């Protein structure tokens, strides 16, 4: 099929960007969206033009590297799907497709469709861990964890850190991302010891990074490619309230 792509091009962080239109021809419906982008990039290269920079790596939907805001939706029109797992059969011959980077003040553009998500890293560094050193830990079966809790913790732990939740939110809030880690570790007995400081520190860092406030629209969970649920945000709120009400850090 033949398509028209409108793609955000931006030379670097400090240059202004603009939408540029590219026709692409002979796209197979079995191609993935990123393979379609590869085809366009090969064409651009042969013409001696700069190919479009976009983030991607595993192309299996698990590394969280790919992004792309496609026709106004993070990771495109299919629910529960990363851009790398989106296939062209979900588009029609003659379609015009708009492709933009994640849009959030906390995710500045490096180039074209590549954004800087290091704010997520700093939030994780603020407390997204259990403080154990290598070695000297108890036997893995020493603490039984009910299956239902292990399963729920797992559901939260599947966050791939792609940033679609931030891109989907009108306030560019990172609440879903932060809540996934907070609730995973708050649910597990191993994570209880640092339960209060973790949520306090991670939320404080989230605010420092300039993410917006959460107004509970649920756009984040609706667009999350791995189905992280709004329940985690509820849990984050109650964890935060509990921590602040009993905090030793005031």
């Amino acid at each position: 099929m033949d398509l028209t792509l409108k793609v955000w091009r931006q030379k670097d962080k400090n240059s202004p960007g603009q939408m540029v239109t590219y026709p692409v021809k002979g796209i197979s419906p079995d191609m993935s969206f990123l393979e379609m982008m590869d085809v366009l990039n090969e064409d651009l290269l042969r013409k001696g033009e700069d190919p479009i920079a976009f983030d991607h790596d595993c192309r299996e939907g698990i590394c969280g590297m790919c992004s792309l805001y496609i026709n106004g939706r993070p990771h495109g029109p299919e629910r529960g799907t990363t851009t790398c797992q989106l296939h062209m059969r979900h588009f029609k011959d003659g379609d015009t497709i708009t492709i933009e980077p994640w849009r959030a003040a906390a995710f500045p553009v490096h180039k074209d469709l590549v954004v800087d998500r290091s704010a997520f890293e700093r939030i994780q560094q603020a407390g997204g861990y259990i403080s154990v050193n290598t070695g000297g830990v108890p036997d893995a079966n020493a603490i039984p964890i009910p299956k239902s809790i292990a399963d729920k913790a797992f559901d939260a732990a599947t966050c791939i850190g792609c940033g679609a939740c931030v891109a989907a939110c009108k306030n560019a809030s990172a609440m879903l991302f932060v809540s996934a880690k907070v609730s995973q570790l708050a649910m597990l007995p191993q994570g209880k010891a640092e339960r209060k400081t973790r949520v306090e520190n991670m939320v404080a860092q989230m605010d420092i990074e300039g993410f917006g406030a959460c107004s509970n629209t649920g756009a984040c969970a609706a667009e999350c490619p791995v189905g992280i649920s709004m329940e985690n945000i509820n849990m984050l709120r109650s964890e935060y309230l509990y921590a602040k009400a009993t905090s030793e850090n005031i």
Partner: protein
Amino acid sequence: MILDSKIPEGALAEKWDKHKFNVKLVNPANKRKYDIIVVGTGLAGASAAASFGELGYNVKAFCFQDSPRRAHSIAAQGGINAAKNYQNDGDSIFRLFYDTIKGGDYRAREANVYRLAQVSVDIIDQCVAQGVPFAREYGGLLANRSFGGAQVSRTFYARGQTGQQLLLGAYSALNRQIAYGKVKMYPRTEMLDLVMVDGKARGIVVRNLITGKIESHSAHAVVLATGGYGNVFYLSTNAMGSNATAAWRAYKKGALFANPCYTQIHPTCIPVSGDYQSKLTLMSESLRNDGRVWVPKTKETAEKLRRGEIKINDIAEQDRDYYLERKYPAFGNLVPRDVASRNAKLVCDEGRGVGASGLAVFLDFADAIRREGQPAIAAKYGNLFDMYEKITDENPYEQPMRIYPAVHYTMGGLWVDYNLMTNIPGLYAAGEANFSDHGANRLGASALMQGLADGYFVLPYTIGDYLAKMPYDKVAVDHPAFKEAEQNVIDINNRLLSIQGNRTVDDFHKALGHIMWEYCGMARNAEGLQFAKQEIRKLRDEFWRDVKVVGVNEELNITLEKANRVADFLELGELMVEDALHRNESCGGHFREEYQTPENEALRDDENFAYVAAWEFTGVGNDPVLHKEELKFENVKLTQRSYK
């Protein structure tokens, strides 16, 4: 050069404990005087960097992705082996050791593999303490499942996302050290050269992938945990960015590269659907527990099916060939990966393959669905069936999956001794980047085990032994050795940018992948390998004459990044062919058609080839020099693997 594997004396079961006692220690106050560089942040790199930081060393960690959490360990599906014997089914450290040695077709070092089995139990404890949500039974204890090549259930798992959960565990430990300031993290930074001073590894040269800036970093020791080289085939289950550049440039500085021809071709992947294909997706080995593999009995039926003249259901039961069940009645569809892959190729070569290209076989769940019902099958494999449908637009509940083998893992890598140190003092290699534990074939759920064993439990001991003997003095990055390496990197980049030819980097990469897959893939022979060697040389010459790299160095330049990686693959490919050509036997993932039993099984030659082939660089286009490390088997008896 004499290869000293430095395997400790004494009984197999006591070597590691004795060695840990004998290694020199660095006292806590002195650890902060040493700097360690870790390149790569997958399971091996992240766990090593975090553990070094906890011990008190100053660590610099590097990855080319935008976050350490993106490393391709994240995509591992099935699980991680450990000799916990929680199931009371007769597992033990010795049994895990034995299965791994045998699974590797007797081409790995006994002492390394035994240590791997020993520390496997500690890995599970460590991961649970970090909050890794492994699968659990209703009683709250950890669940296990079984995997290929073993008769016990020793595989720990987190649904089909075990690699993700383990990596996020190691990543969280790494983050904690970054927050403490013990690890400085450099994402979007790619290592392009190794720096040696007085014969020791003392640093690296990197390129900042955002600004293009070439920078040097100095340290007392360098750890490469940069993964495997499966992308030499262009199409593989590796991530798009997975590359061999760090390891390769270390090879060109004198590190030996061991067993490069040992590559693992995984039997159950989604087949190629067109020229535009950028990567291949694995369907977990666990599917072969319930799926039956078949192709039409005759070439004529297969042709009709491919032309669309008949439908799958028009093929009567007696016209189907369940070839694995027919040839290997004892193991059936659960033969090891190398055997299953080779047989799929065999039936496709006979013209009996299915799908538009004829390069696929069926994996059929109809019997299992009839037997257990669709909900039971969905509960076991739902996420895999969904992924298959997403990619192929075919519903595997209604028609069989089409699968074909794909390059998945490389057992070869940088040669290391028992301490995981290469032959260059101060240069270590861990995880898939080294050659050490899997011999000629890796068993399922063992890659995660090895990555974490190396990073959490081996390197933290062995690197201290080396550092304890090192002076504290740092080498400044304006030392001539750093300047020379920087200039080398700048020269390569300038050369790539100045060619301005007609063919794209991907074009060359695809051409190389084609040669490798045809002549150095699932089945190899001397004639084909000789031909491949010439073809690769020709292709490499053409690359340096006619490649087209646009833009400049001082920017985010995706073409320049790729060009560097493909330039190295074009040299590595030749070494793989060289190794495959010299190894006149078949073993594990290396199948030479000249060396097979009358039943088409791999024929090993223990008399002449029970050694590690470690290759020394002598210049691009020159034949490398072979060094042999004899493998001594004192605790297992070498036997022919049979699955009939």
